[in-house]
């Protein structure tokens, strides 16, 4: 731990300094990066530790966003009330998703979570009286305490730090080790007497809860929800962040989120063909660093300083 203390302190200080070093638009960009890092991390909990890659987390995330906006702008509730309901709704959705999805693994898990996400998208698109259909829901939902961009940044930073710590604890707990065991060999874990389905169920719901928390932050950030918020593209974007950063590292989600969002912003500044550039970057990552940026960096470190990693 002491080995990690210095870089950790540096990163923490850098994150705290963002509103001063990069005020204005860049702070809001940093806020967005943190929110998407939290979403990506929630996917990594499943993908990296339980070996279940979900394409439905964007929908769970979006459900929380929708519920916050609906509670505040349509029902006239308090933002914190909306946040609470958003979290509940996302958790309930995660429970439903989990019950249907944990029976499968591999590509089937991918497909069933994709299908569930598409159902949510379809509902948001067609249930016009509640979701506003194609036009979505709009309105200022941020609590007045956090109205300014700087307090809001610190709020998101604190929330994301808390969530990251919770997720880190979760995957490094005995429970998390069991998930890793399941990733390694489901049948062996079953033989050893573990209730695999229950573990996967809890893992999925916890991960969905964090996706929902990210969705609540996103509602505060964006003040807007539309079918695009729950669309497949959202899930895929977050999954790509995990892949670029490194699956099964948690930290990788931050790296991926920062890399993709800044790339998106930087490249679109220069060319309207930015989706193509992003695509090329993904392909390059898959060819040259299939273990993701963080995974690659760890491998390199291990190679050049073998004495650190002695068993």
């Amino acid at each position, binding site marked *: 731990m002491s080995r990690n203390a210095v870089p950790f302190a540096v990163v923490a200080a850098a994150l705290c300094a963002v509103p001063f070093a990069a005020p*204005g*638009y860049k702070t809001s*960009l940093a806020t967005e990066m943190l929110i998407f890092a939290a979403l990506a991390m929630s996917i990594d909990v499943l993908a990296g530790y339980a070996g279940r890659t979900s394409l439905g987390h964007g929908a769970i995330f979006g459900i929380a966003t929708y519920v916050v906006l609906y509670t505040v702008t349509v029902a006239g509730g308090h933002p914190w009330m909306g946040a609470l309901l958003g979290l509940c709704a996302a958790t309930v959705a995660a429970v439903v998703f989990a019950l249907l999805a944990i029976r499968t693994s591999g590509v089937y898990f991918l497909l069933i979570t994709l299908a569930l996400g598409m159902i949510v998208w379809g509902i948001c698109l067609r249930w016009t009286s509640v979701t506003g259909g194609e036009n*979505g829901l709009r309105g200022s939902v941020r609590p007045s305490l956090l109205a300014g961009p700087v307090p809001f940044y610190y709020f998101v930073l604190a929330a994301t730090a808390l969530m990251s710590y919770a997720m880190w604890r979760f995957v490094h707990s005995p429970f998390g080790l069991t998930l890793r065991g399941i990733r390694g060999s489901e049948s062996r874990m079953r033989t050893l007497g573990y209730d695999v389905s229950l573990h996967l169920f809890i893992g999925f719901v916890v991960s969905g809860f964090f996706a929902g928390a990210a969705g609540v932050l996103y509602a505060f950030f964006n003040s*807007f929800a*539309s079918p695009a918020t729950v669309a497949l593209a959202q899930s895929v974007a977050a999954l790509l962040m995990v892949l670029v950063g490194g699956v099964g590292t948690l930290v990788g989600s931050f790296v991926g989120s920062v890399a993709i969002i800044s790339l998106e912003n930087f490249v679109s500044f220069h060319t309207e063909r930015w*989706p193509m550039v992003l695509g090329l970057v993904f392909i390059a990552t898959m060819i040259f660093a299939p273990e993701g940026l963080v995974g690659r960096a760890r491998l390199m470190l291990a190679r050049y300083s073998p004495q650190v990693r002695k068993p």
Partner: protein
Amino acid sequence: MHRRSFLKTTGLFALSSWARRASAADAGPIRIGLLSPLTGVIAAGGRELVDGFNLYWDQVGHKAGGREIEVVVEDDASNPNTALQKARRLVEQREVHMLVGDILANTGLAVAEYVKGNGVPYFIPVIAADDLTQRKRIPNVIRIAGYSASQSTRPLADYALKKGIRKVITVSQDYTFGHEQCGGFCQVFTEGGGSVLQQVWHPLNTPDFSPYLPQIQSLRPDAVFAMETGADGSRFIQQWANFGLKDKIQLFTSMNATDQSIIRTLGPEAEGVISAGHFCEGRDDAANKKFVADYEKAFAKLPSIYAFSHYSGAMWLAEAFKASGGKVEDRPRFLEAVRKVKLSASPLGREVSLDKYGNPIYDMYIRKVARRADGKLWNVPVEVYPGVSQFWKYDPEQYMKQPSYSREFQGIKKA
């Protein structure tokens, strides 16, 4: 004495340098943030939007109201979340003085919500959602050179009644723009004594209309009103002809369905389709002809509604820059200037101005798709409805008491 003159000169010097700095800031370029879907489902339209907007500024040498004009283009990716992010970036990082653009209603509404909070002027030559200039209007969101969704279909309904049509079926994409266009049509049509036999709502991007067309035929309407945009528009017109309905039932469409972006890829099946709109590329008018010729020369195709609206929108802004002496930093004054613009000699037709809700009052043309001398399809006017506002002949305050058009509420008068 010395001391006093010293104070005087230094004071004057300080004052003059301050004044110089102030005027230097004023003389910097006016930065316009243009949001356009350059990627995503409506990317082709997005390209034309940018072309149309820039065409005007190129023609006037990127100058208006004594200042340089700088257009900063951002791609909204046809996605409201991206649109919002890009709007933030244009305002907060590029420090644009105003935002213009977007095509899809959801992207426009997202940006409108953002500018509601910070007062940045936002101009929407294409975003047609009725309530942006009606029940939920935002003072700094102004529809220069644009139209509200139900505005253009009301004259069309009136025209249909005059032609002796009494029974219609509406076919429409199932989203707000469709609900509002059909609502405007149905309300005027039924209040004038017509009846709506059925309303078909289909999802966006319907590849096949064959489930609907025989059903429509069996109900024997006098006419069909089809509200289609994008690829649905060309597919509907093609399949309408393939099913042999073309010469049996009169087809009316939204102005988007016979827009250049669609009919330039169609053949004889599109000829004779009637629509209503404020733009009519085949209209015989000097300003209009010049715009169409310039655009065709620059981009080798006839202009679509997106190019036209943003070209006219740019003209509108230029007028407002002139009227406000280029002082766009003074937002209330600048917005007032935009509202007061009376635009003449534009491709929009005769003098155009805004109503007090921020929506233009236009001459609306009933248009028919016909062949130009060189064989290209274009829309020519068959009748004109002068001075049509977004409220048609209704009293605005009274009108806004009725609910917004939706699938459930179409303003249909019970016989």
